[in-house]
């Protein structure tokens, strides 16, 4: 058993090494390129994208849906791990909460990038109409952001107090900040009670808000008549998809943090094994809804639907469709069945593939449907018959992804990625802690 000081030293945030600096530099570069592209889009209008009257939404929207989906990880881990009091959650929840905050913040930004008149953003409040699913989004996204920030913050209080003490000599300035953030946390019974209660409330809230968020996101599409979107299966389909995307991202980020911060002693193979099972479960559920969404309609497909399914199964989008289905869904299930598949390194690759497939999955949900309207596409330039993102769209989209990674990186840099107090408690060292404090 490790003693308390070692734990604090291991888990306290610390400066990046060379590699970390390069990583941040790279992200900043991508973000700057994206900002330049966005300014150009503001000036010239969305002609700089390859979206046109038929493909009227593109990767901005699919990227938005991806962010929303990934942000679901906070709700999932809370629902499955915190509320059920699973012991193996301790080193995982903080990172899950960080991913959630980063993704939902970026979702909000991404949807604004898609607006052709961001200068009229306020109209969404001034002239808000409750019957539009976009208005529901305008309500739920900030709500979810606030809840996820609280969920990140409240469990951090004791850790902030520890860090204040830890840095009091070496870095007085940083220590002051941690002190302020800790809200005078001393760890007495009254404080603990309030904290536990609040976390419980927030935990319930984030599950509700998370499910609502995914549902509204699905309704954005299923409230239209479009073939492939007009589906009653869409909300649970999106929720289960979000489960997969979220856990996939969690596995990937945890692996990287573990290596970068050398946390092998805290995030063990046992944790990866558990996460592997969780991911497999997520994929199985999602597979079930995919069958409901694609296979069963094939039996009674109306004409439009038949065309839609054909472009996915054998047509233009077939390679992408089978990639996201096989590599992003079936393959993980098979690999994760084996104990060897649930070791950290294979899990990392599986997580990566799942995340990439999740991103393209949203593309597959949005683009083909838009290019199959009820009336034929006629009288428009030939290039409007298909869609592939322009350089501007890629630059901007990559920048949003980089920004999400930057938020995650910075939060991991300044917050203890693994909860210190809880780890200490679990290792039965709280007694030592108290005596050293007094």
């Amino acid at each position: 058993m490790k003693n308390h000081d070692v734990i604090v030293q291991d888990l306290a945030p610390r400066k990046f090494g060379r590699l970390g600096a390069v990583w941040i530099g790279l992200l900043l570069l991508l973000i700057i390129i994206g900002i330049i592209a966005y300014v150009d889009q503001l000036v010239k209008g969305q002609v700089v994208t390859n979206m046109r009257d038929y493909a009227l939404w593109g990767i901005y929207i699919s990227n938005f849906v991806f962010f929303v989906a990934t942000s679901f990880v906070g709700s999932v881990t809370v629902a499955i791990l915190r509320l059920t009091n699973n012991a193996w959650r301790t080193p995982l929840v903080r990172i899950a909460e960080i991913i959630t905050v980063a993704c939902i913040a970026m979702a909000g930004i991404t949807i604004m990038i898609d607006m052709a008149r961001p200068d009229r953003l306020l109209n969404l409040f001034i002239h808000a109409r409750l019957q539009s699913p976009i208005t529901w989004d305008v309500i739920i996204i900030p709500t979810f952001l606030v809840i996820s920030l609280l969920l990140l913050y409240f469990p951090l209080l004791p850790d902030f107090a520890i860090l204040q003490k830890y840095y009091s000599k070496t870095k007085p300035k940083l220590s002051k900040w941690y002190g302020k953030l800790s809200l005078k946390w001393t760890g007495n019974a009254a404080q603990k009670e309030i904290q536990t209660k609040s976390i419980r409330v927030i935990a319930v809230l984030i599950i509700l808000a998370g499910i609502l968020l995914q549902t509204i996101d699905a309704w954005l599409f299923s409230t239209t008549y479009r073939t492939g979107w007009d589906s009653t299966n869409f909300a649970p389909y999106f929720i289960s998809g979000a489960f997969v995307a979220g856990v996939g991202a969690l596995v990937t980020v945890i692996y990287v943090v573990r290596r970068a911060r050398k946390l092998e002693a805290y995030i063990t193979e046992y944790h990866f094994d558990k996460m592997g099972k969780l991911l497999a479960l997520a994929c199985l559920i999602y597979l079930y809804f995919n069958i409901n969404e694609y296979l069963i309609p094939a039996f009674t497909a109306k004409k439009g639907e038949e065309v839609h399914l054909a472009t996915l199964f054998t047509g233009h989008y077939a390679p992408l469709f089978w990639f996201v289905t096989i590599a992003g869904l079936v393959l993980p299930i098979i690999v994760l069945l084996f104990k060897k598949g649930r070791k950290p390194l294979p899990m990392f690759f599986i997580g990566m593939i799942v995340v990439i497939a999740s991103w393209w999955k949203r593309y597959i949900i949005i683009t083909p449907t838009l290019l199959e309207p009820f009336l034929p596409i006629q009288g428009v330039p030939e290039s409007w018959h298909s869609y592939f993102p322009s350089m501007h769209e890629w630059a901007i989209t990559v920048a949003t992804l980089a920004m999400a990674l930057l938020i995650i990186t910075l939060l991991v840099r300044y917050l203890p990625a693994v909860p210190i107090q809880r780890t200490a408690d679990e290792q039965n060292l709280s007694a030592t802690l108290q005596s050293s404090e007094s």
Partner: protein
Amino acid sequence: MENNSKKSRRKFLDKGLKIGIASAIGGVALSKLSTSLKANAEEGSGETMELMTTDGTIIQVDSSEVVEMGHRHGMDYNVREGIPNRKFVMVVDLAKCKNALKCQSACNKAHYITGDNAWMKVYKMQESEDTAPYWMPTTCQHCDKPACVTVCPVDATFKRKDGLVLIDNDRCIGCRFCMAACPYSTRVFNWGDPGQEVTLNLDMTGVEPTPEYAGMPSLKGTVDKCDFCPHMVKEGELPHCVTACPNGVFYFGDKYEDTVTNGEETVRLSKLLEEKAGYRLLESLGTEPSVYYLPPVDRLVDFEDGMEHFTEFQSVEKPVKE
């Protein structure tokens, strides 16, 4: 009134708006117009009223000179409410259409369409291999249950009581949700600067058409579509596409009056629909369009003749570059 909010651009439907406001304020107007109506009215009642004229000065008027006046066709009306007691409909007789495309070019010209996607499309249709091909002109269907209006988050696209579905492009945020929602793919977007030449019509003769004259000028980052030409309808005239068609394909009219006209003949709407078995596009979706179609039976011309004008990849003629 709606136009309290801002900008003169909003007067897109009404040249006589100022007079309109003055009369609408009190629901009264000077009775000069109405002397004939009140021919036997007594010589002044002795009471006076204060009224504001269009240029803002207050004048004293004998109250017997003042009468209540309802809104009339061709006068002002609330742009968001529509022309009172009307319900505009269109009937498209597919049997007569030979893809002359005069409707399209007239609409393009009148609305200064500069993009690549016309508001008025003539589709080359063929449902299945064994069924006959035909030409199908489409406008916005001005649905009574418009999917586009339901999803708009800011009420920029709205449904009027007279049946028109219009767009307030001063309010539109450019989310394109309405385009995704419209099952008739009728909406077009200004992806870049529309580049319309807005010539201010200063001589007041109203001859020189400008985007103001035909509707709102298009704006970058907002959505557009067929507006059923309210600027014409208000004057009691027919939309451009209707008058431009050499074959009398389009009938336009008022459902409450049960009459529609294509400029040459005026017919009972109900009778026309009954006799020619009228139908509406994608009826099963429940959008309740205001545009009716008459099936392409007993055609006078070959479908093939229309192929001459068919351009698969173009609907707006581009000015030839020098």
